[in-house]
């Protein structure tokens, strides 16, 4: 059985988006930034795919090719990449600054202890066994 290019592309976009959403829902700013980046990649490929998938079709008229790919999504993707790059740079800087000023890289500014307590409210956190009676 051969996999079609369409199937690969569609599942690829879906998989990357799913990973991005999973990371986005994490509590620390680094996975959140990674998640945003992955969603950005998935969206860029998605825009590209919305111009339909072509083989051997240049996006330029007058090349004598039998078919032409739609050039507009490619232009849109370029714009989206540039904007995505700038905003990712900004959000990384912001996350670093947040970590520096707040003393924690948690998105809600929780300290490590507070976060552990929120995730494991019954004190059964891994590595916490010795301090369980606290």
């Amino acid at each position, binding site marked *: 059985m051969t996999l079609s*290019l369409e199937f690969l592309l569609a599942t690829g976009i879906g998989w990357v988006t799913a990973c991005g959403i999973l990371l*986005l829902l994490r509590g620390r*700013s680094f996975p*959140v930034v990674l998640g*945003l980046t992955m*969603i*950005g990649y998935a*969206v860029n490929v*998605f*825009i590209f795919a*919305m*111009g*339909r*998938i*072509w*083989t051997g*079709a240049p996006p330029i008229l007058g090349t004598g090719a*039998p*078919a*032409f790919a*739609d050039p*507009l*999504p490619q232009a*849109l993707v370029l*714009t*989206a990449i540039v*904007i995505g790059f*700038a*905003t990712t740079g*900004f*959000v990384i800087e*912001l*996350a670093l*600054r*947040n970590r520096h*000023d*707040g003393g924690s890289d948690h*998105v*809600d*500014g929780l300290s490590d202890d507070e976060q552990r307590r929120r995730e494991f409210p019954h004190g059964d956190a891994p590595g916490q066994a010795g301090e369980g009676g606290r």
Partner: protein
Amino acid sequence: MSMLDHLPVLVVLLPALTAVALLFIGDGSAGEHGGHGHHRLLWARRLSVASVALFGVLAALMVQRVAGGDILVYRVGEWPAPFGIALVVDRLGALMVALTAAVALPVLLYASGGWDSHGRHFHPMFQFQLMGLAGAFVTGDLFNLFVFFEVLLIASYVLMLHGQGRERFKAGLHYVVLNLVASALFLIGVALLYAMTGTLNLADLAIKVPQLQGSEAAIAQAGGLVLLVVFGFKAALMPLAVWLPGTYAASSAPVAALFAIMTKVGVYALLRVHGVVFGGVGDAPGAAEPWILPLALITCAVGVMGALAARTLARLVAWVTVASVGTVLVGIGLFTPAAWGAALYYLVNSTLVVAGLFLLGEVVASQRGEAADHLEPGPAVGQPVMLGLAMLLAAASAAGLPPLPGFIGKAMLLEAAAVHPWMGWVFAVVLVAGLLTIVGLARAGSILFWHVREDLPACTMSGGSARLQGAVALLLALTVAMSVFAGPVQRYTAAAAEQLGDRAAYGRAVLGEGAQTTRPYRFDAAPAVEAPR
């Protein structure tokens, strides 16, 4: 071509060029007064204020030009319409640009009273924000709308963090991350629409989307719903509004006041895309139509409840913002020209009032010493009569008491809702929301001005400078003017709503005659030539 023919692009270029000039001037070493840096800041203020004043003049000229019903179309680079990017200004677009100017000038005057020196590059970012706002309101292209959204968002990220502080950074991170997710969704929606119609021009989309059949139509509707999530997020439609109070309350007052117009960008985009492009034609309801009205009613209800529960004045005003956006969206969700006209009237007024309340709140807070804007008994304010009266005026207008414009807007809205099957719900929610808004603001006012702790010394007159109070007075005067000139403004907003419904005229203006048949790029035509894989 006279200079005035370039109006649609001038309102975008003016703030952009001013921002670049301001970057060159710099603000010296902001935060430290005196010396050379202070002079630079003074010049930056003068240039910034002059530029915004000129922006206001351009906006007024634009309103005057489109008031008769003309649609200004500016084809950038003279590319013909569906292929190049066209800037299109109709009554709605001109109104929104004018509203931007009306909010921006007082806010900038207020910020020049000292806030702009609390961090770097306030003035350039303010101008970039104006550029993004103006661009979003004049563009006639969906992807270009995305680009201007990003321009105004990136500027807003920096403005939101202006002044810094731990709380602001935390709220800022949430704000930025949520907006980046919304931007990704915006791109998905745009790409879906492009894939089905082969165009991004709003006028062209308005003609082609209703022509779609079967699965193409379904996918385009899915794209429209994705865009509804995005615009609902920007406009603070309820399940997506919980970010707003924290963000606005954590921002500095002038920035929060400027952000009063940011939610209206969402409302504008919603109206443009879901009102016009996806607007139900004949019997077919648009994709978003069944969603907007119920969600708007919920927004209204949750907004006032948040306002009642708020513990600081800034949070209270932020929740009032949510409630007012809910009221506007109720009008949009009714999907009749009369309701849209009323909603636009209410939108203009509520934006001015909310911006005024944010600024007023900070003036009051600065006179209460340690208590600041916490809604708890504190020292007496320095100017109880003047600030109290200003607060009363703003509260009455926000809640919709006659004869203030909030009342006129709500009355028109309810009149337009009288024929809708949801009439009972609309009446109940809008009226109760108005009542609870006045309860919330009256509670805040009585605590701030009357629950004075006698054991504390009466506070200073800080925040009493003519510039700060003049800015607040200017915004409040504008809402009173909305009431005095209710007739002309109401006629204009009603005409703007009528114009939105006339998609054929919009299409003719942008695309030229015979636009109904233009379909430059069709995927399913002549597959032998295109040979997709």
